[in-house]
C-alpha cells in the first residue's frame, strides 16, 4: 500500500465542522481531527461548532496568516451549500491577495455520512476519516487556478409572455439591460388575461395586465416576439446563441377587416380562452384588447379556403412560413407558466355530467354570463352550486389514482382556496338567492388579505363542508324527482363524519396547477424538473430562482404553484439575478476546463474526435523551440470540462483542471489506506 507522500511546500489546514450537532451527534469530530493531524502535510486539524459562521471562517483566516497554511480542506455539509463560502474565505485571507480560491477542497460529512449512518457512529467516524484522508490527498495536488473572464452579452431572453415573463422583462429593461421576450402563442398575457378580477383587492385583472404590457412593449430596450419558440441553444453563460423559430402571424399591419373576416371564416373551433365553452374562428384574437393589436391565423385549423381574402385581402397571407433567427444573449429567464389540471373523465363526474366544470371554466362562465338575475347553465337556472377543493392537488400516493403519466399530484396548488372563495363571494353578490356549498379539506387562505375573503364568504351564507383527504366526495346523478340533476356525497367532518348529500345544479372543481409541458426547453437548456414536475431551483433558500445551469433563472409558476403576487415577486427576483450576471458586462467562468500538456501531446486528434463541443478542442500548429507540430489546443470558453478527451488521449496528455486523474489516484490510495493509528490517550 503506497504511503501518502509529503509534498514539500504544501501546508494543509484541515477543519471538521460539528454543524451545530448535525455532524457531531453521529461522527466523533474530535477523533476525526486527531487522526488527520498525524498525516503528512497536515499542519493544523481543528473542529468547530459551525465552520461556516464568521468565527469559523476567521479560524481558517488566522491559520493561513499564522501557520502559513496554503491548502484548506473542510469537512462539513454538502459542497453544494458551502464550497463557495470557503473558497471566498481563503481568497480574502492572508496579507495581500489571499490564497488562490481553488486551493480548497470540500468534503461532505453531513448528507453523505452523519445523516445516513445515524445507527453506527463508529463506522460513520471511520468513514469520515477516510473521506477526509481522500480530500487531503487531493489537496496535496491542488494547483492555483484562474477563472476565465468573458465578455457578457448584455441581453437577456425571457421565455414566456405571461405576467411573470412580462414582469421579469420589464425589470431587466429598466435596469438598463436589453431583453427579448418570446411567447409561444400569438398574444401576450398568459392565464392572467383569462381572469376578470384578482384577489385580494378585486382589481380588474386585464386592466392591470394591460398596464404592464404597455410598459413592457413601450420600453426601448425590449423586443417582443409572439408565436416564437426556443428551438436551439449553444454557448454558455454570458454568451449563449439562442435559435428562435417563429410561426407566421398570417396577418400584418394594415389589416383592418377582422370582424368581417371572422364572420366569413367557416372554421369554428373551441376557444381555449374560454376553456372550450365558446368557439372562435381560425382567424382570431385571444380577447378584445389583446397585445398585439392584430388577429392571428390559427394554422392548426385554417384550411386556407380564402373566404377571408374575399372580404379584403390586404395584410393577409394564408401560408405559414416559419422563420428562424439567432440571438446572442447572456442569460435566460424561464417563465413558461402553468396549465390548469384537467380532471380525468369520470373524476367527480367530469366529462360525464355536463353540470361538472372546472374553476377556470367557471370564471369564464361568469365573465360571459351577463347581468341577468339568475345564473344559467345548459338553459337551466342554477339554484345550488357545489365547489369542491383540491381537485388534482394534495393527492395521496396509494389512495388516489395516478395521472396517465403515473404521477400523483401530492402538492398543494396554493391558489385554489382563495380563488374559490373569491368566486363564492362574487356568486353571492351577483346571485343572492343561490345556495353555495364549499366542500374542502382545509381552507388555505394564507395570503395577505385572503383571510378576509374567507370571513366574508362565511358571513355571506356559504355552507362549508369538510372531508378527509382519503375520503374524497363523490359526484352522483340525483335520484329521479330531485330538482337538481346531481348530488355531491360528502362524509362531512364538520357534522361529525355524517354522510351528507348536497344537491347541485353545477359542480365546480377547484383544479390545481400543473407546470406547462416544457420538456423541449428542459433539454435545450439542460435544466431539470423536480419530482413534482415543476422546474427545480438550486436550493429553496440559498438560490431560490436560480437553476443549476449558470445563466438560466426561473420566474413564476414554471417553478411551482404561485398566485399573481408571488409570480411577480419571483420574476423580479429573477430579474435581479440576471442583473447580477450581466449588469457589469463580464462573466467569470469556473476554471474547470481541459488542459493539454504539449510535451506529451502527439497530435493524434483522438480528443478532437470524441469532443462533442464545437471549437472546444482543436488541432493547431504550435511552434515550440523552433519546431512546429500539430497539438491539441483548448478554448476554455467552449470547453465544459466533461473530460471525455481525458480518457480518449492515448498519451495521458490531457486533464481537467481541478479534477485530474492523478488527484483521483491519490484519493484511491487514501481510501485504500489503513486508518491512522492514534497515539494512546494515556
Amino acid at each position: 500500500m503506497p504511503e501518502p507522500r509529503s509534498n514539500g511546500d504544501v501546508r494543509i489546514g484541515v477543519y471538521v465542522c460539528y454543524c451545530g450537532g448535525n455532524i457531531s451527534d453521529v461522527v466523533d469530530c474530535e477523533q476525526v481531527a486527531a487522526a488527520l493531524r498525524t498525516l503528512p502535510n497536515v499542519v493544523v486539524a481543528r473542529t468547530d461548532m459551525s465552520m461556516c459562521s464568521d468565527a469559523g471562517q476567521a479560524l481558517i483566516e488566522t491559520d493561513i496568516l499564522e501557520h502559513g497554511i496554503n491548502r484548506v480542506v473542510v469537512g462539513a455539509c454538502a459542497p453544494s451549500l458551502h464550497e463557495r463560502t470557503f473558497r471566498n474565505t481563503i481568497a480574502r485571507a492572508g496579507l495581500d491577495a489571499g490564497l488562490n480560491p481553488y486551493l480548497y477542497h470540500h468534503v461532505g460529512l453531513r448528507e453523505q455520512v452523519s445523516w445516513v449512518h445515524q445507527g453506527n457512529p463508529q463506522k460513520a467516524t471511520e468513514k469520515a476519516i477516510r473521506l477526509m484522508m481522500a480530500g487531503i490527498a487531493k489537496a496535496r495536488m491542488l494547483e492555483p487556478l484562474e477563472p476565465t473572464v468573458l465578455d457578457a452579452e448584455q441581453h437577456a431572453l425571457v421565455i414566456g409572455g405571461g405576467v411573470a415573463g412580462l414582469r421579469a422583462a420589464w425589470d431587466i429593461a429598466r435596469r438598463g439591460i436589453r431583453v427579448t421576450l418570446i411567447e409561444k402563442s400569438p398574444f401576450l398575457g398568459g392565464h392572467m388575461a383569462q381572469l376578470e378580477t384578482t384577489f385580494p383587492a378585486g382589481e380588474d385583472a386585464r386592466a392591470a395586465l394591460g398596464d404592464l404590457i404597455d410598459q413592457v412593449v413601450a420600453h426601448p430596450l425590449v423586443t417582443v416576439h409572439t408565436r416564437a419558440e426556443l428551438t436551439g441553444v449553444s454557448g454558455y453563460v454570458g454568451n449563449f446563441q439562442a435559435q428562435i423559430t417563429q410561426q407566421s402571424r398570417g396577418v400584418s399591419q394594415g389589416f383592418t377587416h377582422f370582424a368581417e373576416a371572422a364572420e366569413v371564416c367557416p372554421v369554428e373551433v373551441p376557444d381555449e380562452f374560454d376553456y372550450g365553452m365558446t368557439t372562435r374562428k381560425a382567424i382570431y384574437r385571444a380577447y378584445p384588447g389583446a397585445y398585439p393589436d392584430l388577429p392571428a391565423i390559427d394554422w392548426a385549423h385554417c384550411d386556407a379556403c380564402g373566404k377571408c381574402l374575399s372580404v379584403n385581402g390586404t395584410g393577409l397571407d394564408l401560408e405559414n412560413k416559419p422563420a428562424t433567427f439567432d440571438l446572442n444573449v447572456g442569460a435566460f429567464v424561464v417563465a413558461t407558466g402553468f396549465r390548469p389540471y384537467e380532471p380525468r373523465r369520470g373524476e367527480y363526474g367530469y366529462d360525464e355530467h355536463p353540470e361538472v366544470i372546472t374553476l377556470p371554466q367557471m370564471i369564464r362562465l361568469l365573465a360571459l354570463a351577463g347581468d341577468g338575475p339568475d345564473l344559467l347553465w345548459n338553459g337551466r337556472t342554477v339554484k345550488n352550486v357545489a365547489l369542491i377543493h383540491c381537485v388534482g392537488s394534495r393527492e395521496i400516493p396509494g389512495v388516489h389514482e395516478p395521472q396517465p403519466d403515473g404521477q400523483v399530484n401530492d402538492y398543494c396548488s396554493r391558489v385554489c382556496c382563495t380563488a374559490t372563495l373569491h368566486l363564492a363571494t362574487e356568486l353571492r353578490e351577483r346571485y343572492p338567492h343561490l345556495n353555495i356549498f364549499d366542500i374542502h379539506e382545509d381552507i388555505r387562505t394564507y395570503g395577505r388579505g385572503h383571510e378576509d375573503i374567507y370571513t366574508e364568504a362565511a358571513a355571506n351564507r356559504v355552507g362549508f363542508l369538510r372531508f378527509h383527504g382519503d375520503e374524497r366526495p363523490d359526484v352522483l346523478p340525483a335520484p329521479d324527482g330531485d330538482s337538481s340533476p346531481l348530488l355531491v356525497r360528502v362524509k362531512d367532518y364538520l357534522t361529525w363524519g355524517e354522510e351528507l348529500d348536497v344537491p347541485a345544479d353545477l359542480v365546480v372543481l377547484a383544479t390545481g396547477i400543473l407546470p406547462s409541458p416544457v420538456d423541449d426547453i428542459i433539454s435545450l437548456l439542460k435544466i431539470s424538473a423536480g419530482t413534482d414536475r415543476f422546474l427545480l431551483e438550486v436550493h429553496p433558500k440559498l438560490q431560490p430562482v436560480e437553476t443549476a445551469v449558470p445563466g438560466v433563472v426561473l420566474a413564476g409558476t414554471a417553478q411551482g404553484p404561485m398566485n399573481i403576487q408571488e409570480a411577480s415577486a419571483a420574476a423580479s427576483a429573477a430579474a435581479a439575478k440576471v442583473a447580477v450576471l450581466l449588469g457589469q458586462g463580464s462573466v467569470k467562468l469556473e476554471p474547470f476546463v481541459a488542459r493539454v500538456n504539449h510535451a506529451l501531446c502527439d497530435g493524434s486528434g483522438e480528443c478532437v474526435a470524441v469532443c462533442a463541443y464545437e471549437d472546444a478542442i482543436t488541432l493547431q500548429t504550435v511552434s515550440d523551440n523552433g519546431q512546429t507540430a500539430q497539438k491539441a489546443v483548448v478554448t476554455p470558453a467552449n470547453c465544459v470540462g466533461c473530460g471525455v478527451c481525458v480518457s480518449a488521449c492515448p498519451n495521458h496528455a490531457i486533464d481537467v483542471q481541478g479534477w485530474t486523474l492523478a488527484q483521483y489516484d491519490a484519493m484511491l490510495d487514501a481510501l485504500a489506506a489503513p486508518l491512522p493509528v492514534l497515539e494512546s490517550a494515556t
Partner: protein
Amino acid sequence: MATASEDMKILILATLSGGYAGADAVGQLHASYAPNTYILPVVCPAMFPEDFYLRVFERGIDAVLVMYSGTDCPYKGGAERTAQLINKVYPLMTERGIDTRRLRLVAICTVCTSAFMREVAQMNQTLAEIGPVRNELAAAVAAQASLSSDEVGQP
C-alpha cells in the same frame, strides 16, 4: 458461504449533476444505508480510462458503483461515452480474474433516492456472495505463478 460485506469497500463515483446530488438527497431524507460506501464527486465519468478501474480493484477496493446522470447527463455524448468505456473494462476484469459484478454503471438522478439505496444494498448483497476482491487478486497471482513455474518446468 456468504461473508459479511461490511468490511469491504464500495467506491461510488457520482456525478455532480446526478449521483452526488442524489446521495445528498438521500441524506436530506435521513435515510440509512451501509457505511462501507465512499462517494467521490466526478464531473462526468467519461474522463476515466479503462485502466483506472483496474487500479481501483488492485488497491483492494471491492466494488465500484458508477452513478452517472444517464439521459440527464448535462454533457453532450458524456453518457454514451461512459457506457462505452465501462463496457471495455469488463473483459479486462475477466482477464484478471475479477468478478465483473464488482463494477456497475447506474443512472442516478438528483432525486433518485430509492434507486440510490437499492443499488448500495444490492452491491453489498453481491459482495456478501462473492467476497473481497483481494481473494480474486491473490488467486490470479497464484495462477500466474503456477503458470510461470509450469513454463520453467518445461525445458
